[in-house]
């Protein structure tokens, strides 16, 4: 049996649920996580170096914001 890929609707629904619990999270962050969930995150367990890079880019998003912007 082959592994089932995650559908776009499924990913969006999960992000919507998670965002409802944490409305402070910026749109850009959610968009990045969505891309990851449909690509790199489902291919393999990522090495810590790669996860550090992603964490850095998420942190950079917070620094570039003039105060975090809530998702709509």
């Amino acid at each position: 049996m082959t592994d089932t890929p995650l559908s776009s609707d499924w990913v969006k629904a999960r992000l919507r649920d998670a965002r409802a619990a944490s409305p402070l999270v910026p749109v850009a962050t959610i968009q990045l996580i969505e891309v990851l969930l449909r690509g790199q995150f489902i291919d393999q367990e990522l090495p810590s170096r790669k996860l550090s890079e992603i964490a850095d880019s998420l942190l950079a998003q917070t620094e570039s914001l003039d105060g975090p912007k809530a998702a709509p």
Partner: protein
Amino acid sequence: MRIRSISLAWFRGAAESLTLELGSKSAVIYGENGAGKSSFVDAIEYVLNNGKIGHLSHEYSGRHQEKGVINTHTPADVSAVLTITLDDDSELRAEIKRNGTATASGAASAAVHGWDYRRTVLRQDEVAAFIRNTKGGKYSEILPLLGLRPLEFAAENVRQLAKALERQGRVRESRAELEMIKARRDAAFGESSDLDLVQTIAGRYEKYCGQGGATQALTRCEAITAAIGQRMAHYSDEQRRHLILRDLAGLDLTSSINAVRSATAELANAAEPLLEEKLEVLRSTGGFIAAVQAGNEVACPACGQPVPVEEFRTHVNNEQERLKGMLKTLDGRKAAIGVLCDRLNALKSGVSKPELGPWLEQGGLEQRAKELAALSVAQVRVNCTEDDLRQIETAFVPLIVTATAAAKDAPPDVQDLAADTRLIEVAREVVASRKLAEQLKYLIALAAFLESLERGVRDEIRGRSQRVIDELSADIQTMWTILHPGEEIEGVRLYMPEGSDKAIDIELKFFGVEQESPRLTLSEGYRNSLGLCLFLAMAKREAETDPPLFLDDVVVSLDRKHRGMIVELLEKEFRTRQVILLTHDRDWYAELRERLDSGTWLFKALLPYDKPAVGIRWSAKTSTFGDARAFLTDAPDAAGNTARKIMDTELALRAERLKVRMPYLAANRNDHRTGHDFLFRIIADGAVCFRRKGAGGGYEAYADAITTFRATDKLLVTWGNKASHGFDVVRPEAEKLIAECEATLEVFICPNCRKPVYKLVDASAELLQCECGHLQWRYGKA
């Protein structure tokens, strides 16, 4: 995908050349213990498990298992070779050198390596392995079938990303820093609100900077600090000295030292038992696994304490909270060291100012000032030891004590300025920390977001797992019902225990009572039967890659009745799959030969193993009438001889099944009976024992059968023996002999249901019949 053939050369028990020709059919392979039948299964395992065979994993088998994989009598400089040919003519060829290193090649590699060994091969000693496995082990085994690998990856990546964010965003450090700032604010401003703080800043701004100008609190703080600085510039040396001494007096080194010591002590108290417990984890791992399997108490892998399985989860949670508490203490210690170092820097800065020179000299404090100048605060920040604390306490705290005493003599305006300076410093720190607090708030929100996302993914995993497990359970239940019709063990199903994330177990109803594990009540035979159902249910889901199934002696512990049911199971559930059954059970082999469709099944037997140099050999007694007919044109005598050999074997099997009493013969003649010997007794017994249903519904002697047997027996004695010994049988004679032999074997097949007379009918085991009961053979009625 089907296997056309498996060829072995010097692999395991095989000598120079051995081929299992399947022609893409399913097969039953019979061989006594040690005949070498499992060598074919070993070949499959060797290929699927990257050159490893589980039962050869042993320190004596060699680095590449070469001492077990290669025939002990392989000629020098010859490699072992195994070749698997698929029905599309593609081939996988593995050549194994004497040192065990192997090279594999061929177009079939990709297809064959797509087969999961655990879904392809079931061996005798593995039948109940799934049942014996832990709940977590069962989950791991089923996981590939769930198709949830991407979700598992996603959940783990989200979890690790949250950890990386916490680490790189310095969440813990920021929390500790904000707590320290809050403590300083409380000390300076008490319970005042943010508005009070802003008003305080506004008041000091008006005092030092006048009306108008800056409106932001932070800007105002900076303006106030600058204004105070300007005012101080006009102070006399005496005033500046008092001001500095007031600053030094405010440095509470002692409380900082105490905070560091307190956190260090707390850590030391917690760290020592923790280390011991972690070491215990390593020692108790083996016992932990054994205890879980036994269902007793388990030793917690985090701390080693014995706990009941049910409480294990709670216990682990508590352990996690304890470790989190320790981390918080660790952060607190780091923050306390940070404050201590900040105060030391302030002390160094103050003491080094020239205005304090006379004061130091007057108080005999120059030596302490020199020691302070030599102190590496950066080093203390990285590694603050008790020696450092002691030095700070004995050498530098007296400086502050002396400064505090001297500061009391400061003029009121200096005291006022010093107090304002300190107040504005704290106010500025509080205002500036708002950005840090905002960032921390965001990071905490992000962590909550990721946690919620991970939870969502794990909920999905659980939901999808449940669906697949329900489907598997339905298949298991169907198969179990086929093997155990009408028995009081029912409701066999897999389930995910409540509150467990990655665990699966098996439950069933035993005489109406729910049982959480088959190990509680099932006998070994039933457990193996259930293990077979579990394997087949899981294998059934591999429809996409369609690998063949190898069942190696898996019915050893099943009784005759339940072994018989396996045919129905295979016919109902695996009609389209290639199945290779290997057995050392001659009765079962005979039964399978009778019952399985010869159009889709092959039957092959191995000779007893002789010696490694000769290797595994096929028995010649497994020819078919098709083989016999192939000789008709060129060698009619060989055709007749082949037919006779077939009858020797087939009639022996039927006589055994029908419990036909054969006279005892001296020495090894019992093992060399001919078809005529068996047929002679079958005819004698059959006149009374063999019956068929008559037109009125009652049973009558099966006279036609006896007539057919007699005709065949006559030909076997005449033309059969001529073919074997005289070699002068002509084609028409051989043709007629083959037809008669086929007709005789056909007599044992019911003309109505097309099933052989094999089925044990009553408990007293006196009666065999076909599926529909049209034909019967009553034991002991001769």
